[in-house]
């Protein structure tokens, strides 16, 4: 009996339901009981594990999961050595630099001193500002990044934005796009070798929108 291929699926957030749906349409229906991390599927070749989207690049890089669904922004932030085999299409968003509406900063060029930047994406942000020749102090935070400028923790934030609505509600203004992102189907390098036929079949079905 060949071992089953483990698919990592986000356990919450905006990528969770679309991932479950596209898998179902692609013939991999998750037979899930509530509050279970690990579950069989309607396919005899696949099983799924639920985990944080942020951890999926790591699980896949180390082969703890063979394939998975996660955001391109997260793969870049984690600097994960995985194969991004397909842009699944949903979960489109931008990783943006934003400042309070009344800030004098209009573009990245306006940054002069060493401002504090609150973000859930410290690695990507550090590289972005360095590539622009700007020195900043990165403050890694976990969620509710929009709050940081309001309470004076940071002058700048780097965060994901889909429509710009959350930014506007929190009196913030976008000044630059760091990265365009969407949900990707990723694969461990060795798993692509050992399960190439199954992985490519699944990709073909995912491509058809499932």
């Amino acid at each position, binding site marked *: 009996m060949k071992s089953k291929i483990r698919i990592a699926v986000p356990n919450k957030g905006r990528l969770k339901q679309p991932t479950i749906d596209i898998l179902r349409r692609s013939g991999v229906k998750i037979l899930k009981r509530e509050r279970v991390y690990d579950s069989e599927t309607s396919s005899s070749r696949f099983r799924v594990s639920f985990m944080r989207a942020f951890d999926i690049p790591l699980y896949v890089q180390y082969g703890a999961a063979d394939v998975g669904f996660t955001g391109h922004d997260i793969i870049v932030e984690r600097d994960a050595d995985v194969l991004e085999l397909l842009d699944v299409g949903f979960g489109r968003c931008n990783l943006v630099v934003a400042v309070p509406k009344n800030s004098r900063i209009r573009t990245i060029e306006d940054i002069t001193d060493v401002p504090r930047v609150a973000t859930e994406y410290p690695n990507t942000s550090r590289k972005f500002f360095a590539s622009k020749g700007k020195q900043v102090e990165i403050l890694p935070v976990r969620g509710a990044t929009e709050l940081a400028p309001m309470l004076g923790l940071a002058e700048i934030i780097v965060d994901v934005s889909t429509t710009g609505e959350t930014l506007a509600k929190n009196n913030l203004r976008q000044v630059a796009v760091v990265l365009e992102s969407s949900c990707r189907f990723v694969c461990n390098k060795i798993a692509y070798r*050992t399960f190439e036929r199954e992985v490519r079949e699944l990709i073909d079905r995912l491509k058809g929108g499932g």
Partner: protein
Amino acid sequence: MFKFQDFDGRMLALRPEMTTPVARMITTRMFSTPEPIRLFYVSNVFRYSRSYVERGREFWQAGVELIGCDSDRADGEVASLLASSLRELGLNEVRLDLGHAGLFKEVQKSARLNPEEKRIFRTLVGRRDRIELEKFMSRNEFPTDLKKLVLELCEIRKLTEAASALDRRSGSGKVKRFAKALSAVADALSDYHLEDEVYFDFSLIGRIEYYTGIVFEASVPGFGFSIGGGGRYDDLLRKLSEIQTPAVGFAIEMEKCLQALQSQGCELSTLPDDLVRVLVSSISNERAVETANLLRESGVVAIADVSVRTGKKLIEYGKLARMNYVVIVESDRRRPLVIYDVRSGLKKRLPIKSFLQEICRSRGR
């Protein structure tokens, strides 16, 4: 790589791999040894790793080098030795993926790529991003048949199919001559009955500045890293000695192998099963040393207790130190040994001869 400065200002480095030290040895100390030379090593190497899992910086590699022969048979011998070594370790479903650094370089050359374009091309092939790869090739004006060949090679997993795809290529392109090379390697591997365990992978090129011919990697299903690999490097020795000497070799990553064995459900033991370990204790140190020596002469691992523990504490230590027996020797030579079997907890009195016989019997089983 870890680099340091010596007290007199010279640069030092910890070796990140063993092939270069072996090449240095060949060129400086073994020039009169008849070729081909076959060498093996088991050694520690040092690498910086950003990995979340590998927290260490010291790794162990076991490897071989076959120096002074550039035949396909040499390639076949070394690649098959990697596969059989891993199987011998107890790993199941070992597979090799094989690419060709020379072929890859020739493709890059035919397309007239500059160094930056070469880097992007390697990344795109490695990421198996077909759409971006097609765009890249159009942008860089790859000839139509070369473009077609690259896309075809990216999909092919059998060495013989890769060889015929290259052979079919129209024109007198230099790329075409690799058809022969690949099919010869495929033949050599089939002599070892490896044809079903070796797969072609166009993207597999290792460190391209280093390898010149075949490049291969070993893996097992369910473990996310390659566990060993190698290839042909015909130019490295010339860089060290001005003499062109072909060579092919591999290295097994020992920590990765242990992890892969565990992931396949293999229980790893740090002690050989057939070793008998005995802790000898006595009020008279002379008697303890004497008895331990007698046991050692019979091939038993024996230690004389130096802590002057007695009773329960002695037995407890014996258990923790993974002894098979704890033996108490009385000062009076005429009296038999008191023997605790640590596993069963049984205690008995035996003369040393009978004790040795019992050990021999238990080993025989």
